[in-house]
Structure formats: structure tokens, C-alpha cells
């Protein structure tokens, strides 16, 4: 389970997650990554501490209704939660399992051509989250980005013009990057990818089918 993660989520996205400012799809990416990465988890919790300091600094002297709250706690029974079991991390970390409705075998894949498959996950409309299945040795067509795209490897590995990425690694791509991710030959590659704007494909065929795939 312990993987050596080389590529982390940028601090601005971790801060935005802590502040509650990320679109749901990006929050899903952060939650999935920090399920595997204690470095980024600690950074998020440090930003939460900053949020605590912001909350402390708010001044408001009004009566917030103590009597009402005391009546409310009398009415709720104490929550008896069993000790949560340490999560059993399979290929799919828990927050992502919630969106798939199960583990890898529950994913409803759709072909997007050249052996690549995807499954769009249900999130709010500001951004899109999808799982990508890239057969060993296959490539995602050459493309650019209109906004930000984060791609995290769940299984296998891929490489592009910038570097190589293995389980837990996150690639951050923006307007400045054009790339063609290629899955390693050793195993099929499964990724979580989130985008806040459509991709820009550099070849005709993907461009024609793009509207149907919601890429």
C-alpha cells in the first residue's frame, strides 16, 4: 500500500480545498490523493488550522441562542459510532468508491476510441471528473488545456513530455501544456482526471467526437 509519491497536488489547490472553494470534482481529486498521501494530508490540515484561526478572529457578540441549543442537545441521543476500521485501501480509495458506487468492478466504462475507455462520475457542473482506462502501451490523443486538468494514477503508470507518473502521482496541466500521455507497457493504466474546462485536441478525429464524450 505504501507508494512513493513524486508528484503532489499544488498548494493553491490544497488551500482551496481547505477553504471550501473547489468545485466538487476537484475536491474529489484532493480527497482521493490525500487518502494515499500523508504529505498533502498534513498540508490540508495545516490550512484547516489557518481556517480555525480565521474563525477565532471573527467578532460577533450577538446571542446565538444557547437555550435553543441546550434544548436541541437534550433531544438528540449521543451518537454511538463504532470505532472506524482503518480503511482497506484497494485500487480505489474510499472517497472515489463513493462516487463509483463500488470498487473497480463497478465502473461503467464507455469506449472513447483506440482502446481508451472512460467513465464520467456524477459531480456538480462547474467541473468534470472521469476515470480513464488506457490499455498498456496505448496513448490519450495529443491535446492542450483551456483550464486546469489534474490527473492521478490509480493503477499502472503513464509518461508524457514532462515526466512519468505512477500510483498516487498527480499531474497538473494548464493552458501552457500540450501533452500526449502514454500508458506504460507493463500494465493497463487507470487514472482519475478532473478538468474545469474542455480539452483542446490537436488532431481531427478526437475533435469531431469530443462533444459526444464530454471531454
Amino acid at each position, binding site marked *: 500500500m505504501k507508494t512513493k509519491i513524486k508528484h503532489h497536488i499544488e*498548494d*493553491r*489547490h*490544497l*488551500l*482551496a480545498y*481547505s*477553504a*471550501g*472553494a*473547489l468545485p*466538487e470534482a476537484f475536491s*474529489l481529486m484532493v480527497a*482521493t490523493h490525500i*487518502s494515499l498521501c*500523508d*504529505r498533502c*494530508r*498534513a*498540508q490540508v*490540515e*495545516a490550512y*484547516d*488550522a*489557518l*481556517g*480555525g*484561526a*480565521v*474563525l*477565532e*478572529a*471573527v*467578532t*460577533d*457578540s*450577538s*446571542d*446565538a*441562542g444557547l437555550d*435553543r*441549543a*441546550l434544548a436541541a*442537545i437534550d433531544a*438528540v441521543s*449521543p*451518537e454511538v*459510532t463504532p*470505532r*472506524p*476500521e*482503518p*480503511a482497506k*485501501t484497494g485500487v480505489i*480509495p*474510499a*472517497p472515489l468508491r463513493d462516487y463509483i458506487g463500488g470498487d473497480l468492478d463497478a465502473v461503467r466504462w464507455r469506449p472513447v476510441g483506440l482502446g481508451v475507455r472512460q467513465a464520467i462520475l456524477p459531480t*456538480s457542473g462547474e467541473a468534470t471528473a472521469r476515470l480513464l482506462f488506457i490499455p498498456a502501451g496505448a496513448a490519450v490523443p495529443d491535446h492542450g488545456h483551456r483550464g*486546469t486538468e489534474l490527473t492521478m494514477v490509480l493503477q499502472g503508470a503513464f509518461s508524457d513530455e514532462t515526466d512519468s507518473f505512477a500510483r498516487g502521482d498527480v499531474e497538473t496541466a494548464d493552458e501552457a501544456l500540450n501533452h500526449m500521455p502514454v500508458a506504460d507497457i507493463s500494465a493497463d493504466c487507470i487514472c482519475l482526471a478532473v478538468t*474545469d474546462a474542455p480539452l483542446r485536441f490537436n488532431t481531427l478525429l478526437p475533435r469531431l467526437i469530443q462533444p459526444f464524450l464530454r471531454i
Partner: protein
Amino acid sequence: TMEPSAEPDWPALIGRIRDHRDRDAFARLFCHFAPRIRGFMMKSGADATTAEECAQDVMVTLWRKAHLFDPARASAATWIFTIARNRRIDMLRKQRRPEPEDLGWGPEPETDQADALALQQDSARLKDAMTKLPEAQRHLIERTYFGDLSHREIAAETGLPLGTIKSRIRLALDRLRHHMK
């Protein structure tokens, strides 16, 4: 009402709720934090009624979930902030908030007390450092947490020494991972 200069021991009060369903402990936490949650929500764009509703909800959640508070990883203010933030996403943005995998429970409280104390001290220093920031910088941080900035507008550089608190949390996580084996 004037606050005493020394901070009450918030983690101990939350512990009394967890262990004894202590209503007095709850009342003290409420009087300090509920108005702040209310103010936080109003600065985040909620109207007065919604803000008060949120403050009530958050404090009742604290009562119900006191057993989930881990003082080695968060101060009381931090923990309450995270509950309030999630409530805001739920109520104002009408979205789900994916949470990371649960790491289970921390080590037993006795072994963990030094960590918890050190974290509370780091949190107090952070709070103090924030009051000393230049106005413009503090304002930017506040706007970030009040939800005024989009994720594209947020820059991560806060100018605050978050590194110390981060390494403190990292230690607590390492210990937790160790216990899980």
C-alpha cells in the same frame, strides 16, 4: 462580556462532553464559538437566520461527534471550522464535499497528550501571527476562507509559518499509521 485572558482548555471541555455529556462544558464552548460561527457564516454570504441555523447545527454536531475530535491533529477552533465549512458547502453551495479516507482513531489519549499540547501551542502561535500580518494580507486570507475567491483566484502563499504546524500534524499522522499496522 469580557473574556478571561487565558484561553480555556477547549480540548478538555470537548473531552468532558465525550465522556460525561457535560452540559456546562457545552455551554462554555457554545458561548465562545457559536457567535463566531454565526459571524463566519454571515461573512460567507448567509443571511442572519441561515447563519444562526448553521451555528446551532454546528454546535449540536460538536455535541454528537465529540468522540471524533483528535487534539493531536487539530485545535478546537480548527475542528469547529471544518464542521462549519462543510455545513456552508452543504447549505450555500448545495454540493457534496468528498472527504479523505478515515485513518481510524488516534492512539490512546494518555500516550498522546504531549502531542496534543504542542499542537495547541502551535495553533495559538498561528492565531497570534495572523493578527500581526499586514492588513492587506490578512484580508486576502479571510476572503479565501469566507468563500469570496474562486479556486482560480486562490494563491497558496499566506506569509504565515504553517510549516511548524504541518510537521506537528505529520508526526501525529505517522504515529497513527504506525498504530494501524
